[in-house]
């Protein structure tokens, strides 16, 4: 009897406690110092039995008398959101709102443009005309559809396989080519290797090679948006491999604690160069990690453009309205090699690649859908491809022949204004080139004022 009384009273108290503590915890975030110092102090006005539960920051923690390790994985993996089935038919049970014909066609042509751009630029590298390239084959839906759901005010921090996002935002084929050929018109002034695009005009922050460094930076960008109360969010992309980096974990943790509007978008494409995901982590992919940091997460079919569009739109809404981070994991497959310096057939079966290329192709799946709606046909397809090919060839031709950056671009922008030691080094180098022009590349423009 006593036990029953104790239990029922404590259950009530637990509920009351939970509600009261929840309030206190909510009040504590980003408020004054007075509550700060009491974070772990025992609340003495709470009347619950300390044998049933105890208060610890975060809520009342119920006790248990059974030793029970939480399993390392759930029996069922996290479900994956999709809108179109494998053959591109809209699943009627789906809750997505249908997009307009105009947008639908735009999505498709961008995906095709991206695919062609990747194929051609990759070829150009194989021909020895550029030094490096990375394709986004198999991830066109992720690139284009995720970008389409954002506004131009949202700031992007990419890893390196998201140039389709930049393409959607209006970066021209010519601008892409300029960067690859590192000519004078390159926005990066020829300073970064291919694929390291950046454009402040398009709110796309310059790619930096070390993995994951963009993740805490994205939190910082979101922090600045929060400070300025902007109606925009930040989206940072990364692959499955990058989630092993320390910056991933700390970045997610920070974002949750700081309550900033950032979307963490993981392209889980199965491979990190030659390391398959089974050797990268033992969790149920990435989506499951969100909970560990207190971040809402979702898993989507990365080869379903409509699903990605939906998820991103929703995530953006939550991120901005509630000022909190979201984690999206898109399951997909890296159809191409890691880069032009890689031959993936060395570590994976050709059949695996072919299977994903043929049976789970995001572009053909989507094409089935728009053709099914009567919004696309073969004629439009060949017109589009013909036009894109022509533009690409032209852009490459122009970029290849264009002037290379001048010598002064070597020393400018290291600092805001060029300091004397760099001016001295520039002078010295210019002198050397003047004295021994035969030892330096021809057509190497020397700044005329020195």
């Amino acid at each position, binding site marked *: 009897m006593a036990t029953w009384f104790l239990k029922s009273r404590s259950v009530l108290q637990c509920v009351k406690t939970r509600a009261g503590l929840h309030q206190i915890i909510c009040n504590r975030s*980003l*408020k*004054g*110092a007075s509550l*700060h*110092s009491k974070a772990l102090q025992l609340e003495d006005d709470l009347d619950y039995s300390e044998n049933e539960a105890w208060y610890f920051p975060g809520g009342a923690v119920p006790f248990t008398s059974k030793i029970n390790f939480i399993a390392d994985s759930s029996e069922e993996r996290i479900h994956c959101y999709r809108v179109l089935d494998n053959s591109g038919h809209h699943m009627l049970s789906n809750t997505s709102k249908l997009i307009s014909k105009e947008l639908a066609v735009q999505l498709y042509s961008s995906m095709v443009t991206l695919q062609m751009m990747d194929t051609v630029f990759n070829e150009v590298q194989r021909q020895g005309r550029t030094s490096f390239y990375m394709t986004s084959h198999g991830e066109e839906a992720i690139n284009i559809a995720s970008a389409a759901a954002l506004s131009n005010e949202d*700031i992007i*921090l990419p890893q390196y396989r998201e140039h389709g996002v930049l393409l959607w935002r209006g970066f021209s084929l010519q601008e892409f080519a300029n960067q690859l050929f590192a000519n004078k018109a*390159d*926005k*990066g*002034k020829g*300073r*970064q290797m291919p694929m*390291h695009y*950046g*454009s*402040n005009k398009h709110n796309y*922050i*310059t790619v*930096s*090679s*070390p993995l994951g*460094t*963009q*993740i*805490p*930076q*994205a*939190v*910082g*960008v979101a*922090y*600045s*948006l*929060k*400070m*300025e109360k902007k109606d925009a969010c930040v989206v940072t992309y990364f692959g499955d491999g990058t989630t092993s980096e*320390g*910056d991933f*974990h*700390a*970045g997610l*943790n*920070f974002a949750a*604690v*700081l309550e900033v509007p950032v979307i963490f978008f993981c392209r889980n494409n199965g491979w990190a160069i030659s390391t398959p995901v089974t050797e990268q982590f033992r969790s149920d992919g990435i989506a499951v990690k969100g909970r560990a940091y207190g971040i809402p997460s979702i898993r989507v079919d990365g080869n379903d453009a409509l699903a990605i569009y939906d998820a991103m739109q929703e995530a953006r809404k939550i991120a901005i309205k509630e000022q909190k981070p979201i984690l999206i994991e898109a399951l997909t497959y890296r159809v191409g090699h890691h880069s032009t310096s890689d031959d993936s057939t060395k570590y994976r079966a050709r059949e695996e690649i072919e299977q994903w290329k043929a049976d789970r192709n995001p572009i053909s799946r989507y094409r089935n859908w728009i053709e099914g709606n009567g919004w696309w046909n073969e004629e439009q397809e060949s017109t589009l491809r013909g036009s894109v090919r022509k533009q690409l060839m032209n852009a490459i031709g122009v970029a290849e022949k264009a002037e290379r950056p001048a010598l002064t671009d070597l020393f*400018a*922008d*290291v*600092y*805001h*204004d060029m*300091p*004397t*030691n760099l001016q001295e080094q520039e002078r010295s180098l210019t002198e050397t080139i003047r004295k021994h022009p035969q030892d330096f590349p021809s057509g190497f423009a020397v700044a005329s004022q020195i």
Partner: protein
Amino acid sequence: MASIFQGIGAATAISSSTSFDSKKLIFSAPRFHLEKKGSFLVVRSDGKMSNGISGRAEKLVTNAVAAKADAPAASTTSKSGHELLLFEALREGLEEEMDRDPRVCVMGEDVGHYGGSYKVTKGLAPKFGDLRVLDTPIAENSFTGMGIGAAMTGLRPVIEGMNMGFLLLAFNQISNNCGMLHYTSGGQFTIPVVIRGPGGVGRQLGAEHSQRLESYFQSIPGIQMVACSTPYNAKGLMKAAIRSENPVILFEHVLLYNLKEKIPDEEYICNLEEAEMVRPGEHVTILTYSRMRYHVMQAAKTLVNKGYDPEVIDIRSLKPFDLHTIGNSVKKTHRVLIVEECMRTGGIGASLTAAINENFQDYLDAPIVCLSSQDVPTPYAGTLEEYTIVQPAQIVTAVEQLCQ
């Protein structure tokens, strides 16, 4: 003539018997002249000051062992100005900049309501709010990265490393991103961050808390490094660093936070790229920075008693070096002694030796002597720790040998 321009610091360094009377002359005369020129209390942000007018703020600490908080500030007849400790000067500079520009924010561990582990940010969180003075979780690479991201989109973060040594964890962000992104983005994104924190060898803090990170960072292109050593230059450098469009690393020293000095009430900024003439002289140029400045000044007292006239320069700007001031000194004295806390290999002294040799070879009458700490991790035991730091006696011996 020389005594007037040497300012108050030299007066107290010479001898106490004359200091009382001469103080009156020294304090009032230059103040009169300099106030007229307007360059005593206000240093323009481009740092231009007439040569020879020096020692305005170095007047105060006679005791070279800066750790003693009760070192009497050299009394001054000046009625304006206010006295404070170095960490308060840093805070004052930071607060003034935060008042002036709403984009300036602070991030680091325990910088908020705790006020920072050395109290540099005390009082700022209640005044500016939890968002502008941000307590971060413990991940140096990540909050440094966060600061870089925020800077690229318009904020001006001041990132605090609880101890400079911990910023080794942030090396990737500092080197690959902070120093580089302005360049690699083709000038599209600027990173006007200030990274600051206490470093150097303290009192038995152990090897990992006694790092001299200026050695490791000096090679990174795109960053600037300055080291403060007095309340005056601490505030001035803090303000200048925040206003700079470049990423600046401001090195503070654990043992200098309680230095007391009277600083001007008017607003002022120190030039980031300028060295500070501490004591003009004729016989030898002693280049130093941060805490070693005080060991040098203590040695200078002894040297003066022995009849030497050392010129002491606090180089302050570790990257780039102020080769103008340094060069003028070398051309005058022809002898150089570098006194640093860095380790022998790859320290600031090593780079400075190379730079002076390269640029002023013709003016040197003797090889440059560089006194550094040994290439050992800083031991915990007090006696051992003391052996790793250059002591005034060594400085005196080195000058004597150099001037033979």
